[in-house]
């Protein structure tokens, strides 16, 4: 027990502040309580971090530019369904106050930590600090794309800071990395850490070289072939030697392989690969189940696996789901049998499910989450149930129907993320009525230049009517006008509520006048919001 009396009082105060904020003031109380407490106790983070390290419970840290919140929530949801008590910052408060607030919130009043596992999404900038305090068992890196350059600086620097902070640890957390993204993957390059990799399945090869490919779109990166062969990517230079990288793409224009002809840095072989099946089903296939098992079979993780499996086992022992598959490794006091073979048998070569969230980019988030929970021995059924019934968080492929209006809300904060969201929406829609909530507060990124790297030109015929709100609506208006969208279709209203009301009216009229053909007579609204406007919208919509 590393906590002192002061810390115990802090737990009480934290819960009290949070209660006041959430219940009385109806605000989200994720950040402020800890902000206040830290003003009075500079050692607060250190003390709680020491306590967490001492009780030795598994910690999973998720970081990267896009997909952190979704990946974190997918993992937490699987573990919850498996019966674990999960401590997580599921609301996406991923700076120091949000992270340690979530942790302190999981303590009971007597100072005992009341969760089996910690799943924390971490902002890229505070990641080095967080892992220097709390020992992670697993680190998931989703991807690195350019993001709010005024806050983060250049993306290579962000990546190197993260890589170096992992290297400087005394322990060797397992790294879960995409092999389709050269910067994220580089975090694991030349490290002693155990690594698990994921990627799309290679289906069709389009070209050998990143620099001479004639493309109009590359997944995950902002690409525009406007006039002349212009391809924009976020990582053209080799993170190891600085030469130009070559890459191969699949039929969806996702990078599936890259290599450096100068120094030999190249994409790793993946542990799992994803493939889209018929009827929107997804299949993850292991490259080599035995090799995967050998990677996850190690002494220092058996404790964590036991931890999960204990609760998993006790939760499901009376339930048909997974009762027979409960995996306990040696030393497991509930399940004494020597079950290492059992686990091998339990890793199926293929895992298929129907994802509850759409979007090609979400496949990567599903894969990262899948590797994490497979690492802890969760069985396929639990994962399938969790993945198929996963409810999206507000702003992450969020969808809600209320009084004949379908609200679709996506957070947009950088070019790659925005392009992904547009790709997802226009895969299934001919044209849409859209609300843009666009601001430049610190958390949004104060520089609005990034919208010029979003490929709106590709979709100019697909926007029906547009209302823009937020603090910087006219910057977005110019961007959309320049892309070729008729300026008369673009209206601005600084008031978020009124702007929403306006677009609903327009959309309802469209449906009533059969301007938009929809067999369900449903009025659909698509909302693109920067970070700080999300909470304003959430108050109105949810």
């Amino acid at each position, binding site marked *: 027990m590393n906590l002192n009396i002061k810390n115990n009082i802090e737990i009480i105060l934290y819960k009290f502040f949070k209660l006041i904020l959430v219940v009385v003031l109806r605000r989200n109380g994720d950040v402020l309580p800890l902000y206040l407490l830290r003003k009075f106790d500079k050692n607060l983070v250190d003390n709680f971090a020491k306590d967490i390290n001492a009780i030795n419970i598994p910690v999973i840290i998720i970081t990267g530019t896009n997909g952190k919140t979704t990946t974190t929530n997918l993992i937490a949801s699987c573990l919850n369904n498996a019966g674990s008590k999960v401590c997580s910052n599921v609301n996406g408060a991923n700076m120091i106050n949000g992270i340690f607030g979530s942790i302190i919130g999981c303590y009971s009043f007597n100072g005992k930590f009341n969760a089996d596992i910690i799943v924390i999404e971490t902002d890229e900038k505070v990641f080095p600090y967080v892992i220097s305090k709390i020992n992670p068992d697993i680190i998931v890196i989703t991807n690195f794309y350019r993001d709010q350059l005024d806050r983060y600086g250049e993306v290579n620097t962000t990546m190197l800071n993260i890589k170096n902070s992992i290297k400087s640890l005394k322990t060797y957390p397992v790294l879960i990395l995409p092999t389709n993204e050269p910067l994220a993957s580089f975090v694991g390059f030349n490290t002693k850490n155990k690594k698990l990799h994921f990627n799309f399945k290679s289906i069709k090869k389009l070209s050998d070289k990143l620099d001479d490919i004639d493309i109009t779109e590359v997944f995950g990166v902002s690409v525009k072939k406007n006039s002349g062969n212009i391809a*924009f990517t976020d990582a053209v230079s080799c993170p190891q030697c600085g030469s130009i990288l070559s890459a191969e793409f699949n039929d969806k224009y996702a990078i599936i392989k890259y290599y450096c002809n100068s120094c030999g840095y190249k994409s790793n072989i993946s542990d799992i690969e994803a493939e889209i099946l018929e009827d929107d089903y997804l299949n993850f296939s292991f490259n080599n189940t035995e090799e995967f098992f050998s990677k996850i079979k190690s002494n220092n993780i058996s404790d964590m696996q036991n931890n999960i499996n204990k609760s998993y086992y006790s939760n499901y022992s009376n339930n048909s789901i997974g009762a027979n598959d409960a995996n306990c490794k040696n030393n497991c006091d509930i399940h004494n049998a020597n079950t290492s073979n059992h686990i091998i048998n339990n890793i199926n070569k293929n895992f298929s499910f129907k994802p509850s969230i759409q979007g090609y980019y979400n496949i990567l988030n599903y894969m990262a989450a899948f590797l994490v929970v497979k690492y802890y021995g969760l069985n396929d059924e639990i994962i399938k149930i969790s993945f198929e019934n996963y409810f999206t968080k507000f702003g992450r492929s969020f969808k809600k129907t209320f009084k004949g209006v379908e609200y679709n809300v996506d957070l947009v904060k950088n070019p790659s993320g925005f392009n992904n969201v547009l790709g997802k929406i226009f895969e299934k829609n001919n044209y849409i009525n859209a609300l843009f909530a666009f601001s430049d507060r610190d958390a949004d990124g104060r520089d609005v230049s990034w919208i010029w790297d979003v490929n709106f030109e590709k979709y100019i015929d697909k926007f029906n009517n547009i209302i823009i709100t937020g*603090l910087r609506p006219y910057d977005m208006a110019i961007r959309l006008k320049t892309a070729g969208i008729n*300026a008369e279709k673009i209206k601005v209203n600084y008031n978020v509520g009124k702007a929403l009301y306006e677009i609903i009216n327009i959309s309802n009229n469209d449906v009533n006048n059969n301007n938009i053909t929809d067999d369900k007579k449903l009025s659909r609204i698509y909302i693109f919001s920067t970070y700080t406007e999300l909470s304003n919208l959430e108050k109105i919509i949810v």
Partner: protein
Amino acid sequence: MNYNLNLNAIDLYPEIMNIYGDRGNMLYFKYRASLYGITVNIGSCSIGEKFDTDKTDIMFIGGGQDSEQALIYKDFITNKKNALKDAKDAGKIMLSICGGYQLLLNYYKTLDNKIIEGISIFDGYTAAEPKKPRLTGNIASAFKDKIIVGFENHSGRTYLSESQQNFGKVLFGFGNNGVDKTEGAISNNFYGTYMHGSILPKNFQFCDIIIDTAVKNKYKIALNEIIKKNNINIDNNFEINARKDIRDLKKIINRTI
């Protein structure tokens, strides 16, 4: 339209010098020129490629990541230097932003005191000064009777020689180095600046100045004449309001110089 006007633009290293949304300059230039009945063809010129100065009216280069800018230094000297110098002397237009601007100065001194040679279009140099903070934020400067606004984000500090004309006097923000109140540089019709935003859509009047220079260069006709003869009326409502939305610059934007 009484005219069939065409301008040729070149985007330098589009796949490398592209991280701060500076391609918005080209997109907006093309868009705005189209309102005046002028067609803009945009071509690209990357590593190992050359371009024909005579056939080019305007060149664009944006900012890149330090790690990626290193890819182009050699090529810039070998394949672009002479063409750009000729272009400058011929009165052609160039808009260079941030990292691209730094390449047009005499040299860049890196953190480890290495000198990276520039092409000396502008007389001055840039130094990485690691102990000083990054210069980031909204910025406004005075250029002739216009207020130019944008967003700067650079760690390198640029010092111009006394004889080198700057692009603007800083009214808010940092500019070249945060000390001497200069922002960017001008030489003939070559512009260097730290402003992202992108700068042209943020400053439609400056965009018009560039279009005016381009049509005067190529067709010996002023933009005003084109506007008058064709009775062109442009709605600048979005553009004007976007400038007013920049809260940091509220007091400056309505000022007249």
